[in-house]
């Protein structure tokens, strides 16, 4: 009985002291609703790292990993808008400023205030957003939804379709993280 209690205590302490959580199969989706059509892309190979002690949060996104239903959309996305041969990655490097109010040892939904530098298309901007951290069984799931203006990141819309394509893009983030071994 004593041994079982000791083992449970060790297990509980190991779980509660996990500091770094990561995934390489996080999801980032985007939607741009324009007058011509809705442009949607999805990337399920997003790398994300959260250090719950330091509060640091990192994302690395391979631009060519966005997949589309239509071939032409994918080509235009990579060649005309994101120039993915020239700028193959997007990234976010920042922190969760209220990390102390998120208890990784207790299941629940927590609001996360996030600040950091978002780099898209070779342009880096300071951003501030809120998201959710859903803790279940000692593992966090990060969720966030925000918009970015294409012009802020130097992404030009060709003149012929300028008025028919949305100037802002809605982005959804969903990353289920595992404790790093």
């Amino acid at each position: 009985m004593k041994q079982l209690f000791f083992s449970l205590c060790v297990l509980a302490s190991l779980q509660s002291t996990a500091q770094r959580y990561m995934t390489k199969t996080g999801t980032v989706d985007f939607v741009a609703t324009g007058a011509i059509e809705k442009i949607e892309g999805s990337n399920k190979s997003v790398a994300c790292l959260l250090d719950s002690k330091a509060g640091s949060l990192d994302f690395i996104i391979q631009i060519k990993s966005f997949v589309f239903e239509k071939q032409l959309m994918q080509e235009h996305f990579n060649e005309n808008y994101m120039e993915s041969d020239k700028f193959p990655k997007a990234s976010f490097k920042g922190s969760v400023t209220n990390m102390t109010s998120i208890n990784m040892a207790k299941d629940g939904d927590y609001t996360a205030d996030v600040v950091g530098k978002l780099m898209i298309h070779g342009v880096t901007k300071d951003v501030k957003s809120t998201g959710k951290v859903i803790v279940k069984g000692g593992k966090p799931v990060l969720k966030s939804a925000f918009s970015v203006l294409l012009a802020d990141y130097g992404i030009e819309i060709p003149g012929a379709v300028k008025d028919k394509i949305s100037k802002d893009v809605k982005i959804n983030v969903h990353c289920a993280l595992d404790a790093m071994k």
Partner: protein
Amino acid sequence: MGNKLKFTLVMLTVSIIAVIGAWKYVNKASNDFSEEAPKATYTFKEIMDKTSNDTSGLSRLVDELVAVKGVIKKVTKDSTSTTVELGDSNTSSSIICQIDSRHQASCSFLKEGQPVCIKGKMAGFNVDLDLGLGNTIQLNYCSLEKK
């Protein structure tokens, strides 16, 4: 039939063909690579070694169809997608394969620890220097290599 009517009919036919062609071009589904032969086949170790020894060689594989033989480290599923991570317990480096939605059903049995050969279009790679995530190679539009 008068010449004017003939001309009108020809123009109408050409216009209809052009519209159908344009519609098909714009709405063409993304390529399905499941029946195409890969440019090259690697073991997990062979291709991961390139992330530290031969990044220029690896860069030449971007946008190419490659097949990788490896062991499944993790399977991530949701209602619309399956993503397979190839790797092993000795390294945090891994290959992320986004399964083509048209081949979800044939990949529904995949599980951790299973040896597989997966082919997909290489989307890129990341050499990790500071985060401790290990190096990563990404493949898109993946399917199981049958051969």
